[in-house]
């Protein structure tokens, strides 16, 4: 394992220190428990939008803290859900009197820890709502499993709900909007290489030189199947087809297309994949109204990509375009 770290046990805190220095104008970082908070929190009478999860997916979530997106992020250990006291501290620090919306990616650990945190915060008299996002079509949805994972759609959800909260939409409105986004967003990813969690010291799985894992999760969880590496054209189609079929997205639908790098895939390949995805969508009559291309929800140094499609309505479109000022997304300000 070759990594730019001092000690696997302190990676998250060490990285938070650097992040705090890099973005002192936008963020305040607290360490015990670890929480990343927007610099001007709490914002009076604004719904606090809070998320969190294991570290190693940067910029998610800390990189999305700031005006127009998240009020706070709770970074767990690498690939490990944060603990309830982190979430409770985030709520306490950002509650402006209008309640808090917790955005939780659907993993057992995240759900259970946020659930406990919600109980703690409710006991403190804060109106807390939880929205679970489960946009990964690679995993079969079933009552008898942990269900679908939350992946790329999380970024879009945080941006859109964050914009609504910034405009003064109340907790009921934010929650309803969040559920609408969850209902309309779908993703799928693939991995060309595995990543190595610092405390594990070895790659999470092994792929042959000509194999890729189709339907990979963001913690290196396996997906639908292991298949031979194909051309970019084939890879993009292998992601896009299941995503399109699932909702389904149809001719005439207006969408936001999010082409995401798993971390180790260079931008040149990502743009190349994005171009193919847009062309395939145009061929099916799906209208790409907005796009996001880059490494926004990653798995450490894993090579691979994911595609996320959100079926836009006018309100979501407007909220997507609304100003945002965070380390990782910034426009309109």
């Amino acid at each position: 394992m070759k990594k730019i770290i001092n000690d696997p046990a302190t990676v998250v805190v060490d990285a938070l220190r650097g992040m705090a220095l890099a973005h002192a104008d936008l963020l305040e970082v607290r360490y015990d428990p670890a929480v990343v908070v927007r610099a001007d929190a709490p914002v009076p009478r604004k719904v606090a939008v809070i998320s969190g999860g294991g570290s190693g997916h940067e910029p998610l979530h800390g990189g999305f803290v700031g005006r127009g997106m998240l009020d706070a992020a709770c970074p767990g250990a690498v690939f490990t859900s944060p603990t309830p006291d982190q979430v409770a501290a985030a709520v306490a620090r950002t509650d402006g009197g209008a309640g808090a919306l917790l955005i939780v990616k659907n993993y057992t650990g995240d759900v259970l820890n946020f659930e406990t945190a919600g109980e703690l915060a409710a006991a403190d008299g804060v109106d807390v709502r939880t929205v679970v996002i489960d946009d990964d079509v690679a995993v079969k949805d079933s009552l008898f499993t942990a269900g679908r994972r939350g992946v790329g759609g999380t970024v879009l959800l945080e941006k859109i709900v964050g914009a609504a909260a910034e405009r003064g939409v109340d907790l009921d409105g934010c929650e309803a909007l969040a559920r609408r986004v969850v209902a309309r967003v779908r993703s799928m990813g693939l991995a060309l290489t595995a990543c190595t969690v610092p405390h594990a010291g070895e790659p999470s799985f092994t792929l042959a030189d000509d194999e890729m894992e189709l339907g990979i999760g963001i913690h290196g969880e396996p997906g639908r199947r292991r298949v031979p590496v194909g051309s970019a054209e084939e890879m993009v189609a292998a992601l896009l087809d299941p995503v399109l079929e699932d909702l389904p997205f149809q001719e005439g639908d207006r969408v936001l297309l999010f082409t995401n790098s798993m971390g180790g895939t260079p931008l040149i390949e990502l743009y190349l994949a994005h171009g193919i995805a847009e062309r395939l969508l145009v061929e099916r009559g799906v209208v790409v109204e907005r796009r996001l291309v880059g490494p926004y929800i990653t798995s450490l140094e894993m090579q691979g990509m994911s595609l996320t499609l959100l079926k836009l309505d006018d309100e979501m479109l407007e909220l997507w375009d609304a100003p945002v000022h965070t380390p990782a997304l910034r426009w309109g300000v």
Partner: protein
Amino acid sequence: MACTAESVAEALRAVAAVVVEHREELIRLDREIGDGDHGENMARGFTALVSKLDEVPSSPGGVLRLAATTLISTVGGAAGPLYGTAFLRAATSVGDVADLDGPAVAAALRAALDGVVARGKAALGDKTMVDALTPAVAAAESVAVTGGGVAEVLGAAADAAEMGADSTVPMVARKGRASYLGERSAGHLDPGARSTALLLRTLAGRAR
């Protein structure tokens, strides 16, 4: 043989040592069908607990409650709230008696299991720690009703937990991260079931 606050604390220190010792094994098991952090999570949590135990609470229940809150705020992942809930329910079950007997320990284990199921909604056969804990509780209860002491109760629980853990190998996971693997999860030992068995075996060893 007494089962006081101090002896429970001592037993949990021993658990911490065993968890640290098996850290890599649990990581490896979790890498096979999860995300490879179970050993790290447990080691982090129990190490934190050891330093909290510099001051031992006055009752066994107090020690279990301290374990619960410490694990909840340091383990993270799925295991954190699940083990945390287990210890919290166990603490509530034992109340503030100063010295636990066999039936009290069996009842605490039952409460722990109920807490894990309430939180995680896993059933027997879902390939989770529930598959280790369920037979452990049954064994503990049957020993306790026939007059077994703490050591016998925990010994029976540990034996059953180990068999229960082994029984997860052929199972197809239906809960937790391993469920994403579907059929591919069969053939692997569930890391949480393994850590449950380790924990009970260590407690049993200390009760002797």
